[in-house]
């Protein structure tokens, strides 16, 4: 068995008096798709930021690919981060660069890919993320909300990362696009053996892509395969997973709607 890619031990996050994570442990295995769920404000984004070394935590330890990012020097840090792609919740595209240039940033700055491959790969990722070619020369401010998500995904995928962090990738996408996104994640995971850490509120996406699910609940974390998590006897967990409506159920609900 391969070594786990992310190991979190005893992590505590606190903002002023507000405790967000209370001594949580989490291990993410190589090649799995882990979904992180939890109510709004339960600390999903904070968890992802802690793993990526973007946020100083109160106590505990986080290791990414066997290293603690906070203890590495610039060069080693850069090497590790080349293997990581991140899709931020708000996109975080560079506002003065076009979509194509945004995707080229990691290719150019992190590994110095030469032309014409630079353009070819950027286009490849754009198409893969489902963007139309004529969006290539648009600025982020000229994109729709869903297109921003796709452009950010394309940028996160640019370097063929080993680990992909996705913070609400399907929010803002229409259902068809969301499902094709799920299919893409599965395909990449199968072919490229990607490890995917996905924060999501999209239950369908959870069912279709994730191998395991982590639930952030009352400052603690619960991890397990989806079929085990849905059986957990907790009112919040029960209510959360009962929100998934099958098409039949929906038709019935629609008919009964007043």
């Amino acid at each position: 068995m391969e070594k786990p890619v992310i190991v979190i031990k005893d992590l505590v996050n606190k903002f002023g008096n507000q405790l967000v994570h209370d001594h949580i442990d989490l291990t993410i295995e190589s090649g799995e798709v882990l979904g992180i769920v939890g109510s709004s404000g339960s600390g999903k984004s904070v968890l992802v930021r802690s793993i990526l070394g973007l946020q100083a935590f109160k106590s505990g330890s986080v290791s990414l690919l066997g290293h603690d990012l906070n203890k590495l020097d610039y060069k080693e840090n850069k090497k590790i981060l080349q293997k990581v792609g991140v899709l931020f919740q708000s996109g975080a595209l560079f506002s003065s660069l076009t979509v194509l240039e945004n995707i080229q940033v990691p290719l150019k700055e992190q590994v110095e890919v030469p032309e014409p491959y630079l353009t070819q790969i950027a286009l490849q990722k754009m198409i893969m993320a489902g963007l139309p070619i004529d969006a290539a020369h648009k600025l982020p401010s000229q994109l729709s909300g869903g297109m921003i998500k796709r452009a950010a995904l394309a940028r996160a995928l640019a370097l063929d990362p080993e680990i992909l962090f996705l913070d609400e990738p399907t929010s803002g996408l229409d259902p068809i696009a969301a499902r094709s996104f799920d299919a893409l994640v599965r395909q990449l995971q199968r072919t490229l053996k990607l490890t995917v850490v996905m924060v999501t509120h999209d239950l369908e996406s959870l069912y279709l892509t994730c191998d395991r699910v982590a639930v952030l609940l009352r400052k603690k974390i619960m991890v397990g395969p989806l079929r085990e998590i849905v059986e957990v006897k907790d009112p919040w967990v029960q209510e959360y997973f009962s929100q998934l409506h099958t098409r039949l159920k929906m038709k019935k609900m629609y008919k009964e709607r007043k």
Partner: protein
Amino acid sequence: MTVSKIASFMTYSELNKNQVIRLQGSWIVRNLAVLKDSLDSFPFHKLKDLPGCLVIDARKIDDIDMGGSVALSDLIQQVKELGLSVKIEMSDYVKEHLTLSEKFVGNLPEKSIQSPLYLRKLESIGQQTIEIKNLNLHILSFLGEFFTRLVQVFIVPKNFRFRSFFKHLDVVGLKAIPIVTLISLLIGIVLAYQGITQLSRFGAQIYTVNLLGLGILREVGVLLTSIVIAGRSGSAFTAEIGMMVMNEEVNALKVMGLSPFYLLILPRVLALTVALPLLAFWSDIIALIGGAIMMNWLMDTSFVQYKNQLLGAITPTAFWVGMVKAPFFGFIISFVGCFEGMKVKATSESVGIHTTKSVVESIFLIIVLDAFFSILFAYLGI
């Protein structure tokens, strides 16, 4: 059999009339720069000369990813273009990556054909002319709306945001005192020193006080303060409002039926219009004190002597001539700051451009207006 090593990624060999390109190493995105070099230095033209089958043997590739597959496709493409029959041998692992990579290919749309240089120059002149016209209209409409709102605020004072006004008064006025004090003191010292060294040649060093009094009160105090404040507060106005435009905060206000003029612009402009005269007054006093310190130190002029000489030299007019300009300068700085802020587009770059513009334009306009005042006062004989 001849074997020639091209690079660690590709080896070329001939085997029973067959030509073999053997690929090895890590064909990954991080190695693309080296991969491209080996491809570029590969003698594709030599392949043409020999008959027989051409084999690309990719079974020895250790590692491949989607980025690296692009180089592999490139190689296959280049060989195929030579018109030779090609056989490709690869592992399933490589094949999967190559298939995935080739599934997503596209070409950038062609840039539209460029018109000749003289036409483009002509077009750019025309465009700039139209832009200047639009800019003028824009300024005029901004100015118009500003004064309309100002009048409305006088009619319905409850529309005026006093809290915001006082907050800005604090930030641009009170909090600016340390820097204005320091710079004024230093300029007072510098001017006094220059006056003393020049005038002492005629034994007229005491007239340094006259020079200081008139120079500082009429020009230096207010001009200095305005330039410091343009750099300090004008730029801040542009950046603040610019970020709000970028984040669509201004749009959020608009759809709530709130005018950015009431909430953002009027409080800022009025605060600075009030604050600048006060700061200029403070600057006058401090600069004169700086002069007094220098006179006392170099010429042993006592402070009483300095005061008497000063009061003999200046008139209230000298003071008011300087002071009357201050609110106009304050208005210009804040108005330009807010105007440029509202023009920010949705890129971080444009925040920078407009902040720079705001400072440069307001200092330029201050100096132009100062010259205009000088001409006016000369005409009026003040």
